[in-house]
């Protein structure tokens, strides 16, 4: 809550899964990001506060957390824009195990990235000529539209299917798989399509686009997942899946 002394009362999750919210009063500054606010608390009020950050400029994706119930990068979120109804509540990302305070364990997120075969698999030997990548090629455009993901986990935290289905691979992993499915240099698309259509695969998506709404990079994982569904449908009809 903003008061006349230009301070703000912010509630922050402390502890692990069993923890709770603790309130702090922090000076309110112009153009202050939530990351600035957390840094002030750690340096001046409570050095035991844990949170994760690295680049501070929206490039690494490590500072994602729940701000007033929605996943956001705190380095790119101004306090004055995030306050809703005089409230500012900071919590760890949902759908991931809490390590401490605002830090979550990203391992399940990256495990699913691997399960979706999110790694590039070279399709050629070193002896062959490189396959030319034409930027205007339709498949390359689809790959490019999905490729900028930096794995911050905002989409995963916002996804209601992840919340209800532990096996679901999630929007980021499926979006990554879609960018590789459209990469003409990749040689593992048959296995990748099997990986993204098994238990927890793309067919579980409810298409309600929470991932699109919450992606700080304005990517469209829902569209990527729809693309995987189309590919899967064609593969089934051709007897290849």
């Amino acid at each position, binding site marked *: 809550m903003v008061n006349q002394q230009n301070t703000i009362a912010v509630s922050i999750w402390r502890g692990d899964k069993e923890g709770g919210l603790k309130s702090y009063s922090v000076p309110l500054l112009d153009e202050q990001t939530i990351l600035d606010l957390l840094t002030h608390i750690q340096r001046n009020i409570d050095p035991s506060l844990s949170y994760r950050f690295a680049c501070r400029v929206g490039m690494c994706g490590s500072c994602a957390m729940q701000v007033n119930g929605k996943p956001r990068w705190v380095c790119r979120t101004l306090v004055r824009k995030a306050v809703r109804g005089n409230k500012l509540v900071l919590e760890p990302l949902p759908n991931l195990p809490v390590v401490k305070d605002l830090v979550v364990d990203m391992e399940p997120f990256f495990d699913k990235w691997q399960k979706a075969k999110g790694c590039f698999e070279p399709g050629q030997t070193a002896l062959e000529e490189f396959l030319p990548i034409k930027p205007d090629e339709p498949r390359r455009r689809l790959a490019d539209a999905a490729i900028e993901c930096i794995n911050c986990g905002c989409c995963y935290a916002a996804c209601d*299917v992840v919340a*209800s*289905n532990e096996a679901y691979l999630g929007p980021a992993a499926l979006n990554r798989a879609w960018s590789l499915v459209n990469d003409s240099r990749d040689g593992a698309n048959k296995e990748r399509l*099997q990986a993204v*259509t*098994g*238990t927890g*695969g*793309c*067919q*579980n998506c409810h298409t309600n686009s929470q991932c699109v709404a919450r992606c700080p990079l304005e990517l469209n994982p829902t569209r990527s997942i729809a693309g995987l*569904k189309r590919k*899967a*449908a064609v593969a*089934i009809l051709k007897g290849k*899946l």
Partner: protein
Amino acid sequence: MKDSFAIKLWLIQRVSGMLLGIFVVIHLVTMIVAIQGGLTAKEILERTSGNWLLGGFYSVFVITAALHGSVGLRTVAQETTGWRGVSLDAAVGLFCLLLVVIGLSAIRGLVL
């Protein structure tokens, strides 16, 4: 169970959903046109008895609806109750069969 079972069920639900969209429109238009001025049960049976085209259409309708509903119910059960595995598939399979039997017996009563 093959790992592609779930995606195949998803495709069945998508295709059955598309077909149901068409079938429901045909059904509603037929009902609205046929019932102009009112119809007694006797008049309905007079028109449907021996009508194999109607019987065929509604048989496909019933099977499509049974598949669509059962696959959807399986997903809802998984997501809301956490029930998974062979027991769920068997229960949903039985539910599907029940819908088909009830639906086809109703059509039998109209056509035969």
